[in-house]
């Protein structure tokens, strides 16, 4: 017996919204992979939303008196956007419960932060919101560093990446935020990327249909922070998926499902070589040890996906 596949509005690329909600002319960098994801997410969620923002690049989308958002917005601080979401959600629920606003006036609460807040300073507030089963969507644009301040190492920086505070390459490991969320058993956790708009739209659609804590974790290729030509954003995004370095997956009802299994996988070098932040791994001479380590971690990850824990 086959399980009935849930219906999606988004079967093919042409099903994606053709009219876009997010206004143009923001202060984001050319080729911003974060803005790409936000734009796609916003088109699916719609304007009956309030974005609760933490300090990061996207804070500069709304500068007085302009905003690209047609719905509402609240800037909080770097550490406490999920707590801001709690306050708004609770208040709207109280107002609905005593009839001071109608259901039509209600809003979906969306936390919008970068990886600096999501992986680091905001983790306590996030964990609290999940444990309280707060009904909210968390959208993280992950550009693997404190991008807004010039790409210092964050909790999301991967092995080998050169940052402005690890100029010889980061020697630690990218934190696994997907599993940290999943360990809380929330309603939904998904990874995504703007260069795979259909996969992203389906996940946002699915998340929007659920209640409880939900995360869309979007890898956000960053021309300025990752040091590449802005026109390469989509190509780098495709390679992030094809090399298997950014697995596309979701967690629902205690189960992790990969929405794309790259086969055969492109060697990670193809992805790394396009980015200045990894150039030191190739020249003046190849750093075989680090390159092998990055590849072997990706290989081990997918071996476990395909064959179960080794």
């Amino acid at each position, binding site marked *: 017996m086959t399980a009935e596949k849930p219906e999606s509005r988004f079967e093919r690329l042409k099903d994606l919204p053709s009219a876009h909600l997010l206004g143009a002319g923001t202060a984001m960098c050319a080729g911003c992979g974060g803005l790409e994801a936000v734009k796609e997410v916003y088109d699916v969620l719609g304007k009956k939303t309030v974005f609760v923002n933490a300090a990061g690049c996207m804070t500069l989308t709304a500068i007085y008196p302009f905003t690209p958002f047609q719905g509402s917005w609240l800037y909080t601080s770097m550490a406490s956007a999920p707590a801001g979401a709690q306050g708004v959600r609770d208040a709207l629920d109280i107002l609905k419960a005593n009839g001071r606003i109608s259901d039509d006036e209600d809003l979906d609460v969306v936390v919008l932060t970068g990886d600096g807040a999501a992986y680091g300073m905001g983790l306590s*507030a996030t964990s609290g919101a999940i444990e309280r089963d707060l009904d909210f969507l968390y959208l993280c644009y992950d550009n693997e560093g404190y991008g807004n301040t010039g790409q210092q190492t964050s909790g999301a920086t991967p092995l080998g990446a050169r940052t402005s505070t690890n100029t010889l390459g980061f020697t630690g490991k990218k934190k696994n935020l997907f599993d940290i969320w999943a360990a809380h058993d929330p309603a939904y956790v998904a990874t995504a990327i703007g260069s795979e708009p259909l996969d992203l739209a389906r996940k946002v659609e699915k998340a929007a249909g659920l209640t409880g804590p939900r995360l869309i974790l979007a890898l956000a290729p960053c021309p300025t922070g990752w040091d590449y030509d802005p026109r390469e954003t989509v190509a780098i995004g495709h390679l992030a998926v094809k090399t298997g370095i950014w697995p596309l997956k979701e967690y629902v009802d205690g189960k992790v499902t990969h929405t794309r299994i790259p086969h055969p996988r492109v060697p990670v070098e193809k992805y790394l070589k396009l980015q200045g932040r990894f150039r030191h791994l190739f020249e003046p001479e190849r750093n075989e040890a680090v390159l092998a380590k990055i590849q072997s971690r990706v290989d081990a990850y997918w071996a476990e996906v395909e064959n179960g824990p080794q």
Partner: protein
Amino acid sequence: MTRLLLTGNAAAAWGARLAGAEYFPVFPITPQTEIIETLGRWIDHGEMDGRMVILDSEHSMITAAGAGAAAGVRTFTATSSQGLLYGMEMLYTVAGWRVPLVLVNVSRGLSAPITLEPDHNDILAARDSGCLILHAATCQETVDAVLLATRIAEDRRVRLPVIVNLDGFYLSFTREPVTLPEASLVSRFLPDIDPANYSFRADKPVSEAVAVLGGGPYSYFRYETHLAALAAQAVFDEAAGAFADIFGRTYGALQKYLSDDADIVFVQMGSFATKAQDAVDRLREAGVRAGLVRPFLVRPWPADALRQALKNKKAVIVIDQNLSMGMGGVLHSEVACALYGHNDIPDVLMSAIGGLGGRDIVYAEYAALAEEAMHAFASGTTPPPRLLYTENELREMRKLQAIAAVEGLEDKEDAS
């Protein structure tokens, strides 16, 4: 009229309940916790309506409180000391959001060294935040201050968070008889929450707290907040007038005790000022015309009222239960700032630090300060600021240090 024996913490909880607060983002910390436990129990047992949520920190708590208030619900929360400082970023932030909420701070000395008993460095660290501050000295004042704070915070001319301060242990855990305001009268004093305060509705999208670029727009919003805080002086007077009419208890920005005909006036804040009040009585019995001026409203700072109250006094002694390291008493400098450059100001303005971490201030110290003030008036020389500490206290401290030294030696011997 209901008269109960209540702790300061229970009085604060009653204030929130009578004010009709409906949203309680909270986090526990000694000596405040009884407030949120009391409210939680009432909500759980259906004695009052409300939604309580435990956040992961005071930083998150103040964020949620500000966001809830922005969305248009009457919001109350409470903290102490380290918690207030942990949430300090958000105190400034929610004041900038111009949202009405009431936060009770139960004062406790700041780390390090970590301690539980009170002084005012915590609340005074918030003095520049944009939050207004009322400082209660009794349990009755605590319940009344929460009602006053709610009305002032929500006034369209103000729209700022208000902190009601009370001292840990000495007030938070002290039971005093309290006359609870009648709920039916409270509804005359406090209107329903102003619909103009609502944000975040699907049909009325709004962007709150967006970034600004440059000093021009930034200064504009900062000045607006300052002007609103200044406007709160008149709003406080109106609210206090209405409160007196309805409940028969009168509150001034300054609570004065025998200060009108006094030669020497103590200026002191909070529950320890009741010690000063007692000292005033005893000094008067001894023939010294002493008085007390106690700031009840701390932000906005009632400079005009202070000038009036201290006009032509021989000497003013500011007793600060706080210490700005490398400077001295915070209230002393604020009083000096209110007076300097004006006519008919006191001849002598003295400073004393006392009551840090709950250290007692005894009558002998008030008497000694009063005597010194009389000498200062006569000689025209202001004495240096005093750090109140007795020889006996120093001796006890030396004893502890001697014990620590001996214990340290023994530990080393054991290890060898």
